[in-house]
């Protein structure tokens, strides 16, 4: 070859991350209908719970601070749901769809690192979902008149970001795993959605599961490796500190934060290893491309 190329790998991969995140960040917000579908509609799901708690706690003689806490609880959970849905439905099956669309082979052929590909997807998803979540949150606070106590904003931010990274790390891992599965990926996501929805406690304090019986503890243990569960519990502790005398919290905020950080690392490493392995397998079996040209 006559031309020699010197590309700084770090610069290349940073560009790749931005490039891959771009369609999510720009493209997805290009059609204004998302405000309605992705930000306003989720409020309906939240509203159902809000009205239940209203009924309970705004009865004559009930403590109105509980009402605010419970409703804030649900609004927060409903907002975080957006991230979970994005990870499960969009991130996890992303590589599979890219394969169907014919993009995957172009991605795999490029000299970028596989983590840049996954990272760009995740970053784009996070950004896109954040814009939606913020709209939902603001609308929720406004419509339902919730009062948040932001006494420790730094810790709240730290927990929030650790939760996001762990969640999207999980999404990156699922994306790699789904690569080799065809349409089954959908069934897998559908299968996971409801149980994980339940054990993540989007609409109730997660510790309440314990009261259900002996298996409650086992479920709690399983729930603890789902970043959404821990993150949400920690965020709620930080925002509604005195809630129910602290009886319903899972673990201490510090411990939950520490586990989240560990989960970030574990999921990212697993994502990298599994994508590397599955890419090799796909190249061996001729399954990187679904289109037969």
């Amino acid at each position, binding site marked *: 070859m006559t031309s020699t190329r010197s590309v700084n790998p770090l610069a290349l991969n940073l560009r790749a991350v931005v*490039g891959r995140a771009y*369609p999510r960040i720009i493209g997805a917000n290009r059609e204004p209908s998302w405000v309605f579908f992705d930000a306003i509609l989720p409020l309906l799901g939240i509203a159902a719970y809000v009205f239940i708690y209203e009924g309970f706690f705004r009865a004559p003689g009930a403590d109105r601070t509980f009402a605010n806490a419970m409703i804030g609880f649900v609004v927060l959970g409903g907002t975080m749901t957006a991230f979970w849905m994005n990870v499960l439905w969009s991130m996890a099956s992303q590589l599979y769809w890219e394969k169907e669309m*014919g993009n995957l082979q*172009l991605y*795999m052929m490029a000299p970028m690192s596989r983590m840049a590909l996954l990272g760009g997807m995740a970053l784009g998803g996070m950004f896109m979902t954040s814009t939606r979540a913020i709209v939902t949150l603001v609308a929720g606070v406004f419509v339902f008149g919730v009062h948040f106590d932001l006494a420790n904003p730094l810790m709240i931010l730290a927990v929030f970001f650790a939760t996001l990274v762990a969640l999207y790390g999980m999404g990156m891992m699922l994306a790699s795993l789904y690569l080799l599965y065809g349409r089954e990926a959908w069934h897998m996501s559908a299968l996971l959605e409801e149980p994980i929805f339940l054990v993540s406690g989007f609409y109730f304090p997660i510790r309440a599961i314990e009261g259900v019986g002996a298996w409650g503890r086992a479920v709690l243990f399983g729930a603890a490796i789902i970043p959404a569960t821990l993150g949400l519990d920690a965020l709620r502790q930080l925002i509604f500190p005195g809630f129910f005398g602290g009886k319903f919290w899972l673990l201490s905020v510090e411990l939950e934060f520490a586990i989240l950080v560990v989960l970030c690392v574990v999921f990212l490493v697993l994502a990298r290893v599994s994508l590397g392995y599955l890419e090799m397998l796909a*190249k061996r079996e001729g399954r990187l491309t679904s289109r037969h040209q």
Partner: protein
Amino acid sequence: MDLAVETQQLTRVFTQRRKIFRRRRNGENGESEGPVTALDHVDLQIRDGELFGLLGPNGAGKTTLIKILATLLLPTSGIAKVAGHDVTKDPLPIRLKINMVSGGESSGYGLLTTRENVWMFSQFYGVSSKTAKARIDKLLHTFGLWEKRNAKVRNLSSGQRQKMNMIRGFVTDPDILFLDEPTLGLDVNASRVIRDYVKSWVKTTAGKTVLLTTHYMMEADELCDRLAIIDHGKILAVDTPENLKRRLKKETTFRLEVDPLKDTSRFKTIPGVKNFSLKSDGGASLEKLTFILEDEAAVSDIVSEVVRQGSKIHHLQKTEPTLEDVFISMVGRSLE
């Protein structure tokens, strides 16, 4: 002279997948069962700066070869090297230097504009945004896509999309470009623009190599410095288009237009007939036959066979061999 591509005994076997995922492949004789040998001990050398063509019927193994060279598929056995690096052991330096465009591919995201889409792909190669944008604008003009620069990709016609794909291929300024049927389904003008650009790119820039597959003989003849004819995963011949045609000079080519024939199997048994092909123009009433004859005298036997079947000869001509005739002589059927 350096080699852009080199393969040694390159073999790729596809084993069938588990039942639920089995897809029907395009074997003519329902040959979808059992393992398929897509490439069979292929030895190939493509020089730096060459515009090299792969010519072969459907299922010959062209795309398989390109995918292996593009580091998207592993060989079953044998060696493939691109720019001196082994595709299995050392894909990264290869990826920095190559790009690939396939006919009819749909790449990118419909919500992005043409410009944004190409820019996105350039980022995966670490091209700086400034350089990328300058190249994109230049290429948009070259390929006549400038008016569509801000159109969303989902609103492009398939020809416009294909032009965008070509721009995607050139925007990273690769040293080696793989083009898998780049003019598939394009109109005459668009094909011409693409051919001219590819040709001038290889000829005027030092160290640029193109490996191209095509079904269009004219394209191969016009563009390629050298050609490999491939069928059933085997390379049948590698040479310049001129030399390939010269090989046929010893043989004679006859073209006939006749009323539809009932049975063409007997032509093959006539002494002196090396190979022949038959084309019927869909609904049209005439059939076109091309014969490659080792012995010119065989033509009288051919004529009597046509007449014996009660068919009428509308046209009979002895011609100079074209690349297509070379192909018929080697593969035993025509391409188009």
